[in-house]
């Protein structure tokens, strides 16, 4: 063995002179994202400072509900309470059975109320105009907890030009609070910024089905629909949507 080593070492020694790769490692590039996103956000101050107000403690409108961390207003929910299910008369008649009483869908949700980490519903709608330009939310659309955190992140990503990241964060928010129309509203705005007007309109429509009793938000959503229709060359539809926006307010 040792005999072999000698020529081998010699060869190696010879070769070391003409080795092409530098001794040491392959260059490693650490390409992180730009640091500027968050700074830019705080510089123009948008989301957090101008729009977010903590819900006033002790206001009657705060409805704690544990489902998904958000409160969804169910109109007509009160009516359901009055009708007990069952005990429908089964009287022989033309039908083989009577209608079982009780409206099923707007049933009162009796889940355990869990703390107040969820956000609270609109206090009195105030006259503060909605700052739709920056994606800001009007004063009657206050959010809290996880949804606020994720929307803020998305806002920062969008301001930094990372629309995919913003989209992704908003979808995360949508999973956390699937029935919060503001998330879909923001998603619609980002889709618009991404140039996907049809999806923007779809998200706004979906949001509208969840935005009962929230006129400011409805107006904003109709405005998104109007813009999306304009983008798609449907000016008549856009006008119609703008009218709806006015009616909502």
């Amino acid at each position, binding site marked *: 063995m040792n005999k072999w*080593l000698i*020529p*081998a070492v*010699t*060869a*190696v020694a*010879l*070769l*070391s002179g003409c*080795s092409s*790769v530098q001794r040491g*490692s392959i260059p490693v590039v650490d390409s992180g994202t730009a640091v500027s996103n968050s700074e830019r956000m705080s510089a123009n101050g948008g989301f957090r400072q101008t729009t977010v107000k903590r819900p006033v403690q002790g206001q009657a409108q705060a409805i704690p509900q*544990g*489902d*998904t961390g958000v409160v969804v207003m*169910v*109109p*007509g929910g009160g*009516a359901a309470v009055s*009708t007990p*299910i069952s005990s429908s*008369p089964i*009287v022989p*008649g*033309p*039908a*083989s*059975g*009577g*209608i*079982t*009483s*009780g409206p*099923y*869908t*707007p*049933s009162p*949700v009796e889940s*355990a109320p*869990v*703390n107040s*980490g969820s956000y609270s519903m609109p206090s009195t709608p105030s006259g503060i105009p909605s700052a739709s330009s920056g994606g800001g939310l009007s004063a009657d659309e206050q959010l809290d*907890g*996880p949804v606020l955190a994720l929307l803020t992140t998305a806002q920062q*990503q969008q301001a930094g030009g990372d629309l*995919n990241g913003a989209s*992704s964060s908003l*979808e995360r928010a949508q*999973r*956390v609070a*699937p029935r919060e129309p503001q998330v879909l509203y923001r*998603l619609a705005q980002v889709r618009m910024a991404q140039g996907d007007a049809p*999806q923007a309109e*779809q998200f706004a*429509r*979906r949001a509208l*089905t969840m935005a009962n009793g929230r006129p400011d938000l409805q107006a904003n959503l109709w405005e998104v*629909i109007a813009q999306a229709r304009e983008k798609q060359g449907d000016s008549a539809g856009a006008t*119609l949507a703008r009218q*709806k926006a006015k009616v909502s307010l």
Partner: protein
Amino acid sequence: MTRTRSPRTKKKPPSKGLNPWLSWAIKLSLVGLVVLAGFAVYLDAVVQEKFSGKRWTIPAKVYARPLELFVGQKLSKDDFLTELDALGYRREAVSNGPGAAAVNGNTVDLNTRGFQFYEGLEKPQPVRVRFSGDYVAELSATNGSKLSVVRLEPLMIGGIYPKNLEDRILIKLDQVPPYLLETLVAVEDRDYYSHWGVSPKSIARAIWVNTSGGKMTQGGSTLTQQLVKNFYLTSERSLTRKLTEAMMAMLLELHYDKKEILEAYLNEVFVGQDGQRAVHGFGLASQFFFGQPLSELKLHQVALLVGMVKGPSYYNPRRNPERALERRNLVLDVLEQQGVATAEQVEAAKKMPLGVTTRGKLADSSFPGFIDLVKRQLREDYRDEDLTEEGLRIFTSFDPILQMKAEASVNDTFKRLAGRKGSDDVEAAMVVTNPETGEVQAMIGSRQASYAGFNRALDAVRPIGSLIKPAVYLTALEKPSQYTLTSWLSDDPLSVKGANGQVWKPQNYDRRSHGTVFLYQGLAHSYNLSTSRLGLEVGVPNVLKTLGRLGVTREFPAFPSMLLGAGGMTPIEVATMYQTLANGGFNTPMRGIRSVLTAEGEPLKRYPFQIEQRFDPASIYLIQNAMQRVMREGTGSSVYNVLPKTLTLAGKTGTSNDSRDSWFAGFSQDVLAVVWLGRDDNGKTPFTGATGALQVWTSFMRKADPLPLDMPQPDNVVQAWVDSRTGQGSDANCPGAVQMPYIRGSEPPPGAACASETPASGESVMDWVKGWMN
């Protein structure tokens, strides 16, 4: 994967004779030297080429959804701990360091590990979670400050492997746990930091130890040689190969520093076999044997892994635990001798069990059904090589907790129904989705859920029976001027002559006619006669159009028998269809994948959430109401023997002819599940939709504990009081008055007051039918 074979070394010419031939000998050895030098140049190219480029091909890794934590989240402590166990969190008295958790009553303290997601980096952090009931009541940092949302790292649920492939999780030197490098060097190559590729001393020692028959704790090869052997050469055993190995080892040492070679070694070393998958590198070995990231391993685990290098199969801790334990303790002794660890540390480590995970638990890649779905979706966008070589990270919507519950439901139900003759031959498939996001969360392709094979959830095309009925009724309810939930339907026998002269004569399941029924009752009780009549009235082609709008892309012939579900669909197609019903009339393409990152964590592709409104929410509201009545009073009512009445659910049973297929599809607010039971040979089963699939579904819903269905009432829907016998408008105070939803304008005129004088305050009939956003 191709390995460069070492070419045969040229034999040195034999030298004969003495002095006169000396010059010849010198010349010859010079020639030999030149040949050798040429060979060395060649080897050098080989060494550098492979080492400087992409060293390994890495199969794509598939991850489950990361568990999100936030206050108000519905999550039981037990489910949370299941997730932590699957992620390999150590239970400790006090949580210190990433991957540790401490449970104290309703509070769990843990240190998350952090992870690179599409949206950005989730930092590792200490978190306190307090549970109240089945909810997260508090989420805070250890200093008490509130946290709004925290994400755990996602569970790895599998990879995309070609046949016979090496798999590894690449690690960097700074990710190794304490002791690993010292142990490796102490056991495998004590002179590692001083030799230049080969170590004559250790070779000599190895020979001496071998010949003297002593205990062999150290091989003759250096770490560098072992790396060269695994990385460049075949496993052929010959002197020439040994020499080539030595040369290459020296060349490697010449070009690269010790740290880099060591890092490569850590990633290359073979540590075990997982079926057809070869487990390479300590990174994957740590996950494979301990279910933990390498960086978290403790001394006894490090000793076991390093000890296994000598004979991964012989010292396999799962198959040969005694041998593995003996070997580990031997390694620990060496550490004490070498001064790597103190006697106390070694003593404590020796007392530890092997600590390897058992196979078949959550952490193991045993979800073939879902992985299959992911692969199919990926193949639409990537070439096979991209998936098996580039180390992509695939983020999915898979929910391991729901998957385990789905599997348990199938198993439990079959166990419970084992008495039924023929139930042994019945196969099962299941799809679980989140109707609010359109994401697939769990999937079962076979009754043996861990069995990879025919994926019935995606590929079994079976007649859907009455599962089609919501499409028939929805078609009618979209015409509020003609049909409401309380329209009358005749349930009398009928027969239709087809174009080919054949007569279609449907029958009810109980072979009886039910006279005249309310429209919703036809659906709730799944009456075939009234449904057929309704379907013929609205037109079979229109029903099929509705089916298409619900998201079913399959084409069906417009035969009347389609109205009763003669057409075949796969469980995932049924899920797509019901998804649209559950999601307010918005169709969502089923998604299993959220995003893809490169091996370096750079965003590559997103699979965005997309929706499309296909129906007016009002008609969906009505069909949901009728589907709720299926559960309350119809064919699905057995669910409430098990589930609480407060849990509003909607769904539909389905049974094909002679009970060859047993279906149930239904949803709550946040969970949609489709269950199919049937035989692969299409034989008869002992189950109807209600006695078979619904039982699995019910069991699943009980475990999943979903939120009650709660669709906001669209503003063009009104609740009207009607007489439960006649369907005529009635005052709320009248006996037998019930409230029913109607699309505005289609409700019956309000009835007169019966007992009290309260005037009916209903909306005027003249109210315009509000068109939905157009």
